[in-house]
């Protein structure tokens, strides 16, 4: 630090010179160097909090194809930028280390998990769906046409999107499966 800088950093001088006599004087050098963590974001994406049904608007900050911060969106007439403790923790929910990113498989009578590639798992599930559907198929019930299966069932959470529920109900119905349920009944 030069002598000039040293003198200029003297709080009384800063207080007299500054436009904001209190704030600038109180600001440390460290604070002056701080930058918002979202400053370097490549893009900001509109989102909605996934917890309760108030539907607080979120802004998702992305850098190098990674989410770096999630904040409330002040534009929302519902939430006005606020988030609750859960919504504020949604960065950790989505990017935290406890999330799984690998398919796991437990074979019948197995005592532990095994790894299974996603494609292989999808093939196995498709085969099992077809077999269980056929196994539980009923054409007639008490002499009347029902063309349904009780061999398969699904239970979904209420954080599924509308589009996801729509495809699920559509596929399930076309398969003749009637046991489709959701958190909405629980």
């Amino acid at each position, binding site marked *: 630090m030069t002598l000039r800088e040293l003198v200029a950093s003297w709080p009384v001088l800063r207080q007299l010179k500054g436009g904001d006599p209190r704030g600038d004087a109180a600001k440390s050098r460290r604070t002056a160097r701080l930058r918002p963590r979202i400053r370097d974001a490549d893009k900001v*994406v*509109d*989102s*909605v*909090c996934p917890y*309760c*049904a108030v*539907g607080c*608007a979120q802004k998702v900050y992305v850098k190098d*194809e990674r989410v770096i911060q999630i904040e409330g969106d*002040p534009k929302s*007439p*519902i939430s*006005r930028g*606020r988030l609750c*403790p859960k919504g504020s923790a949604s960065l*950790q*929910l*989505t990017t935290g280390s*406890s*999330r799984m*990113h690998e398919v*796991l*498989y437990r074979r*019948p*009578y197995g005592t532990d998990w095994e790894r299974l590639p996603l494609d292989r*798992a*999808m093939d196995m*599930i*498709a085969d*099992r*769906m*077809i077999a269980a559907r056929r196994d*539980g198929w009923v054409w007639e*019930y*008490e002499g*009347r046409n029902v*063309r*349904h299966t009780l*061999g*398969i*069932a699904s*239970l979904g*959470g*209420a*954080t599924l*999107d*509308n*589009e996801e*529920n*729509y*495809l699920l109900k*559509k*596929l399930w119905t076309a398969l*003749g*499966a009637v*046991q489709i349920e*959701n*958190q909405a*009944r629980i």
Partner: protein
Amino acid sequence: MAECHPVGFQWVMEAKARGAVVIHVDPRFTRTSALSDLHVPIRAGTDIAFLGGLIHHVLENEKYFREYVLAYTNAATIVREEFRDTEDLDGLFSGYDEEHRVYDPRSWQYAGSEMPAPSGEVDEEMLLMTETARVEAHGSGGPEVSGKIYTDETLQHPRCVFQILKRHFARYTPEMVEQICGVPRDLFDRVCEYLTGNSGPDRTTAIGYAVGWTQHTTGVQNIRAASILQSLLGNIGRPGGGILALRGHANIQGSTDIPALFDLLPAYIPMPHLGQNEGLAAYLEDEAASKGYWGKMSAYMVSLLKAWWGEHATADNDFCFDYLPRLTGNHSTYHTVLRQMEGVCKGYLLMGENPAAGSSNSRYERMGMANLDWLVVRDFSLIESATWWKDGPEIETGEMRTEDLRTEVFFLPAAAHTEKSGSFTNTDRLLQWRDQAVEPAGEARSDLWFVYHLGRLIRERLASSDDPMDLPIKHLTWDYPTEGTQAEPSAEAVLAEINGFGPGGRHLSSYDELADDGSTSCGCWIYCGVYADGVNQAARRKPGWEQDHVALEWGWAWPANRRILYNRASADPGGRPWSDRKAYLRWDAERGRWTGPDTPDFPPTLSPDHRPPPDATGPDALSGTDAFIMQADGRAWLYAPAGIVDGPLPAHYEPQESPSENPLYHYGRNPARELIQHPVNRYQPSDGKPGSELFPYVTTTYRLTEHHTVGGMSRWVPYLSELQPEFFCEVSPELAAERGLTHLGWATIVSARAVIEARVLVTERMTPLIVEGRPLHQIGLPYHWGRNGYSRGDSANELAHLSLDPNTHIQEVKAMACDIRPGRRPRGPAALELVEDYRRRAGITERTGMEI
């Protein structure tokens, strides 16, 4: 609300700052109570007695909004001679069938109904009505009422709804409220004063409830009681009024609108049942209403079939109506578990749901899963439903051994909300779009990806099949464009299909455009318009500060972007606002249309003095004062002549398991409640019967601000786990003294199903009540926990039983009975022995609790 919907609660605080009185009725004192003007501690499970007391007060003291009541409710309508009330039959309504434990609802109809008079026998159709949850088809409008409607505008006729209501609630006096609910007279009087003083032409009162209100054997009737009160006070369809369901999941409203539910097709169209095999026309005859917007059901149904089966759906083949599987009974989640235990249901898909900890009587769920051939779990982390076979409670007690369990388990990691595009429908019916920010890492994928590719793989495998069972899947429209490196299907393309297309592939802008000739397609008629002009209306984000308070350009609300339902009722019959202070919609006679800050929930040019020709049907049959346009008689229902399976009026029934007796009726519990008789679902003695003294305390379950549901999205989040690190129970100092519980020590809590342990929080927030002249203690149990994650603990749902609301098949976890004792629970087989000991001492058999 401050606990579970904190950001929504800011508006309650704004209202309070402007002079609104906030009343909080809840067994416990919470952050909401702390910010309210009045906290009313109440015994869990007595909401109808409380609301009934308010209704009684309003009727006896003539505090109702007479002009509104006469114009917009069915108060004047005359009911059939055959109807008998719970007052006449000591807790039963007319039409009860003891053998099947269901009601024949025909005697509840309006006089003039064309429905045949009740025969005294319940037929198959009625059983199916109950089992297939037909009631839920009215999620966006009421059921049909047929025939001429007789009224007495003086409200004096002994069989008019108003007089029936007065007699029904005559004994719901303040003294009775005190006796049943434990709410002292002076406190109740203050609620009455606030409520009636703040309703009328100049003022409105809103009732907010969390979805826990549905988790009772009288769930639907709880909400019915609130609607009767609000209709009498003129608080529906008006700004600042209403009954606000505060839903607890981002898309629980959407999950019923576009139902991943067994009994519904999109937009509340009922799934056909096995009695409906005579073609589409006969089905529509059965289900459609003659008046109002449900009169256009044929257009909604044909457009849905066109969306699903495209060119294969033609008028010649009934638009593939027979491709829809038929319901044969109750296929709800708890009954599906029975099918799993029987070995009928062999494969199970869990998508963001954790029944091994989150469903009532979780052990029952695990018993079902242990008998599956295969189970798929899609979630963020290894929730209890994914790992019960290696570390579940039954492994601990020795009842199950991992190496004996044959269930094959697939765990597939799910994408987060930031990793996929799509829409949630919030608790205001508002669709809000999210854009994908990043692609999910590793093998995590969206549920859209999973369902689409699973469907694709199944279709590939069945492409060459000539089995007629495979035609619906072969003919299904299933070609969605995919995007990105992971071949994610386009959520926006799915939304466009939900919105619907007209001739030439034009995006539809309103359900008024839907036709029943096959020229339109629409995946969910109430969402028609969300993609009007090819624009994703749910993605609109015009800042709140650039709009008025209604903010029509933020997202899109169904139907037709209306923000207040039934808002025609905000104006008087002549079309003038009830008052300047509460003005919303008004009839502009010069321009010949309804105007206001919202989309009118009414035909926009239908004049207040319009009277329809007698032979008109559908929307054309509405008169200019039929404010409740989804109701078959255009009226708000103080009395429900149809559509509800456990009575046309709410009556106070005790919970399935209760330490208290019902002072009002001989039939003390809901006679139509749904029970599941199963060895892992034994009920406790109740209602003062021998053995009930072993379970002397009321328990209720609830949420904390820092956790979400059963914890799948919070127990693995370090911040949230640190804020609420373990399971605890809340007890009053009096109960702690009675049972020797110490603050921060341990408690063991026992029911006929299970024993669990929790840390003890001794707090004055739990108020001992005087019920039926005796002290009554309640125990609060937050239900977020399970054995996995960072924040762990026993699951409160282990204690619960399966007794269900007969309309919705939802379980009663909000009011139960239990015992509590100090110390940790036994481990291993000793835990089973303790529960067995309670069952033995209480004399519990398979018949216990099954009484009518």
